[in-house]
C-alpha cells in the first residue's frame, strides 16, 4: 500500500492537534516536521519519528513530500503554501486562508499556476466545522429550499471565551503585525466561513468592531455586524471572546418558517402558508400565520473534526476522487469578480 509522505509546518497549539490524529492514519507517513523553534522541532520529530527541519523550504526540497499541512501563524500561510505549490506538493492549510484578500488571491493564483503542470494538485482548507452534524443538517434544509425566501439570519456566537493569559501566551498573538486581527482572524473564521457557506456573501456590510475592549490587546475582541444580501435577506453576526457563559444561537427566518439552533437542538418551525403571501392577502389586522414546530433529529454517527477534513484531503490525493470539505479556491463559485473570488474565505 502506497503511503502518502506528509509534512507538517508549524508546531504550535494547532500543529500538535494535527500530530495527534496523523499518527493514527495508516495510509499516511509523517515524513517531516518543521518549525522555526529548534527545541520544539527536535522534540516533536523525535516523538513522531519524522525528520526535523528548521526551514520548511529545506523540508520541501529534501523530504520528498506528497503533501503538507500548513499550521503556521496566519501571515505565513501564503508564502509556505506558495513554496509548496511550486514544488507540486498538495496543501492542506489551516484557517484562515490568509490575513487579507490580496494575499489570498496571490495564493490561489500560485495554486492555479501549479495546476497547469499538475492538474490533480489539491488545495484544501481546514474548515472542520463544516463536518459538524447540525451545520450539515442546516445546510441540507436550506439547500432543499423549504424555508422559501429567506428574510433574516441572526447568529450570536460568543462561545470563544479567551482569558488575558491566552492572549499573553504568544508574542505574535492578537497583534496587527503578528496575527493581523483578533477574533475575526483567529477564533471566528469558522463562523464566517459557515455564514458564507450557507448564505453566500452579503452585498453591504455595516459593522462595529471593538478594539481591546475587555482584554489588553490591540485588535478586536467584540464584533457586531449587519449584512444586507441580494434578494433582501438581512443578517446579524455577534461574536465576542469576553462572554462566559457564551451563547451559540442561530436563527434563520424564511417566509415558510424558521430554523433555530441552540444548545445542541435544531428546531424547525413550519408555517401553514407563506408568511409573505399571508401578509399581502389576509384581511385580518393582527393575525399571524399558523405554524407547527418540530425538533429535527440530528444523527451524530459520522465522525467530525480535523481528522475528517484531513482524511478527505488524503483520500482525494490517493484515490483521485471524493470531495474536499473546503477548497482553497472555492470562492470562485460565489459569483464575484475574479479578485474577490478567491477571497471569500478571508
Amino acid at each position: 500500500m502506497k503511503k502518502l509522505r506528509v509534512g507538517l509546518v508549524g508546531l504550535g497549539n494547532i500543529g500538535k492537534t494535527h500530530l495527534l490524529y496523523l499518527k493514527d492514519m495508516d495510509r499516511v507517513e509523517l515524513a517531516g516536521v518543521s518549525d522555526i523553534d529548534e527545541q520544539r522541532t527536535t522534540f516533536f520529530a523525535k516523538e513522531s519519528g519524522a525528520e526535523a527541519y528548521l526551514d520548511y523550504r529545506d523540508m520541501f526540497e529534501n523530504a520528498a513530500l506528497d503533501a503538507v499541512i500548513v499550521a503556521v501563524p496566519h501571515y505565513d500561510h501564503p508564502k509556505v503554501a506558495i513554496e509548496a505549490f511550486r514544488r507540486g506538493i498538495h496543501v492542506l492549510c489551516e484557517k484562515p486562508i490568509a490575513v487579507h484578500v490580496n494575499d489570498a488571491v496571490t495564493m490561489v493564483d500560485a495554486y492555479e499556476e501549479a495546476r497547469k503542470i499538475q492538474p490533480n494538485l489539491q488545495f484544501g482548507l481546514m474548515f472542520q466545522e463544516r463536518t459538524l452534524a447540525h451545520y450539515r443538517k442546516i445546510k441540507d434544509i436550506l439547500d432543499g429550499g423549504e424555508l422559501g425566501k429567506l428574510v433574516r439570519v441572526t447568529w450570536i456566537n460568543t462561545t470563544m471565551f479567551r482569558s488575558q493569559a491566552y492572549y499573553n501566551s504568544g508574542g505574535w498573538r492578537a497583534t496587527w503585525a503578528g496575527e493581523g486581527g483578533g477574533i475575526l482572524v483567529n477564533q471566528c473564521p469558522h463562523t464566517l466561513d459557515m455564514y458564507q457557506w450557507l448564505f453566500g456573501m452579503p452585498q453591504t456590510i455595516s459593522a462595529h468592531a471593538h478594539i481591546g475592549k475587555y482584554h489588553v490587546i490591540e485588535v478586536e475582541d467584540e464584533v457586531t455586524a449587519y449584512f444586507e444580501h441580494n434578494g433582501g435577506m438581512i443578517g446579524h453576526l455577534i461574536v465576542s471572546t469576553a462572554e462566559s457563559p457564551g451563547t451559540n444561537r442561530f436563527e434563520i427566518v424564511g417566509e415558510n418558517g424558521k430554523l433555530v439552533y441552540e444548545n445542541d437542538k435544531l428546531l424547525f418551525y413550519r408555517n401553514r402558508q407563506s408568511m409573505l403571501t399571508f401578509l399581502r392577502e389576509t384581511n385580518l389586522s393582527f393575525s399571524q400565520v399558523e405554524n407547527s414546530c418540530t425538533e429535527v433529529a440530528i444523527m451524530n454517527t459520522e465522525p467530525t473534526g480535523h481528522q475528517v477534513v484531513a482524511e478527505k484531503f488524503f483520500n482525494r490525493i490517493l484515490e483521485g476522487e471524493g470531495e474536499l470539505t473546503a477548497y482553497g479556491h472555492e470562492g470562485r463559485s460565489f459569483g464575484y469578480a475574479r479578485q474577490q473570488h478567491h477571497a471569500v474565505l478571508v
Partner: protein
Amino acid sequence: MLANSIMLSSFNRAAVQVPIDADAYEDKLNSLINGSNFVKTVQADVKVDMENSFGR
C-alpha cells in the same frame, strides 16, 4: 473577505459594499502595523488546554 469587510466598515464607521477594495484594506492593515506602539506582555506560565478550544 467577510473579515476584511467587517473591519473596514468598522474603521470607516460606514457601510461598505462587497467586494471591498482589497488594496484599501491592505493599506489600512499596514498603517496599523506601522503605527502600533502596543507593548505586548508575554507570559511564560500559561496553561494550554487545547481541547477546550474547539467550540460548538
